[in-house]
């Protein structure tokens, strides 16, 4: 009695898989394979993830200026640097991410108000520059998201780590704001990814894992077993991310 090899085995044509929500570097509370670039790339290869958008752990758990500086050392082209931004005079300074198409905000970790004047200045700059913003659902309230998306209707926001308990709050936000997206990292309820894709369109759902803090294997397997048309699955797996990154239609 044997079982399929651990490498993901797609049932249809091979998907281009882009993880929009990943961290490179050591964590303060665990030992993880992605503590360095080699370890992360091996994990991606094992799970057949083609590209990962990575913030550095020093930027998330330390001062973002230090962590963002480490992104310049990334050598592997499969890793797309995602700077972590902080607004205000004590922040990261460059409010458009230095040309990166995707940035990450952690107002809870870095101690700034998600909807304060500095934040609204930052989101105005991001909106003008066409930069997409990753925002962790656990770092804000639904009212914060409503205000940010409402005041910057052209700003593309990807809510990460939404969990499976917030479906009712999320639907209100996604019904209201067309450029609001969700990632799959903890969208873990029964058939929730299908539900979101069918209600809002697959173009608003992006594959993201939140690894190594949250699991990568489960969401990766989900991609291969989604009960959606192949085109929708390909959008979720990577095409949406490539579009936001400027690498595809």
């Amino acid at each position, binding site marked *: *009695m*044997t*079982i*399929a090899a*651990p*490498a*993901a*085995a797609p049932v249809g044509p091979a998907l281009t898989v882009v993880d929009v929500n990943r961290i490179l570097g050591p964590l303060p*509370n*665990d030992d*993880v*394979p992605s503590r360095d670039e080699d370890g992360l790339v091996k994990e991606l290869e*094992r*799970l057949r993830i083609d590209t990962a958008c990575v913030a550095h752990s020093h930027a998330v758990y330390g001062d973002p200026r230090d962590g963002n500086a480490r992104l310049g050392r990334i050598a592997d082209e499969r890793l797309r640097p995602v700077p972590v931004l902080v607004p205000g005079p004590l922040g990261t300074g460059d409010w458009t991410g230095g040309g990166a198409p995707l940035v990450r905000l952690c107002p809870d970790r870095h101690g700034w108000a998600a909807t304060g004047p500095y934040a609204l200045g930052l989101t105005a700059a991001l909106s003008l520059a066409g930069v997409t913003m990753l925002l962790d659902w656990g770092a804000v309230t639904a009212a914060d998201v409503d205000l940010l998306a409402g005041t910057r209707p052209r700003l593309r926001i990807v809510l990460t780590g939404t*969990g*499976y*308990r*917030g*479906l*009712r709050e999320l639907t209100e936000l996604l019904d209201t704001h067309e450029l609001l997206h969700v990632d799959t990292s*903890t969208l*873990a*309820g*029964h*058939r*929730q*990814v299908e*539900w979101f894709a069918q209600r809002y369109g697959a173009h608003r759902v992006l594959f993201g894992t939140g*690894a*190594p803090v*949250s*699991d*990568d*294997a*489960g*969401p*990766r*397997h*989900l991609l291969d*077993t989604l*009960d959606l048309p192949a085109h929708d699955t390909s959008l979720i797996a990577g095409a949406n991310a490539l579009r936001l990154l400027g690498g595809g239609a």
Partner: protein
Amino acid sequence: MTPLAPAAGVRAPGGLRVIDAHGHLGRWGAFAIPDGSAAGLVAMMDRCGVATACVSHLLAVGPDARAGNALLLKALAAHPGRLLGYAVHNPHDPEAAPRLRELLAVPGVIGVKLHPEVHELALDDPAYTPAFEAAADHGRVVLAHSEHDSRWADAPRFVTVASRHPGVPLLMGHSGLFPQGYGPAAEAAVRCPSLVLETCGSRMTARHLTRLVAEVGADRIAFGSDAVFLDLRIGLGRVLLADLAENDREQVLHGTMAALLSRATG
């Protein structure tokens, strides 16, 4: 196929008969479950190659054990072999003990589900003793929700009841639920031979699972998904894609729970 036996026909890629040790039917109050039907769960099992799911009804876990257990029996009758059942024991129900004994005699009911967190009564409270005694008398298993740092369901309470009822296989649902709880869960399993760790939970990762297998052995770990609370495919993928030896993966996905069910079928 006996009513207690796992289904034989449905297999995962590679031929394994996957058994899900921890599932549910129904809906939950705190958030929306778009489809909590038994037919929907079985369709999902077909989609990803899970032969059998051992489930309790969420109505029984939540407000009404009597009504929820009745719905469970209907689902088991509608999907024999594909769904096996845990009868929920609410320790606050004065008729819980005799009702549980009746439920455990029904074909397809393979064990007892305890949820100290919902019932707000610690797992080692004597009010659960009739449930363990009924499980022992019927040769059934007990699945209990665990939660690290909980006053109702933390690892030390599992050690207490496992030591008190060593003949009853005790599944530790979620293995502590939070990453900080996996270590204490493993320690409890090492101390108590009747304790089996179960893998579901939104905080579990393939990395944590691999560590648990290394610490306690695959024969002490059973795959669970928490469907329809959570998506079956995510819990399954965590085991399928974990960096495990193939024999360990097979043990987690099938062997551990098959052994418990074999015991339950006598």
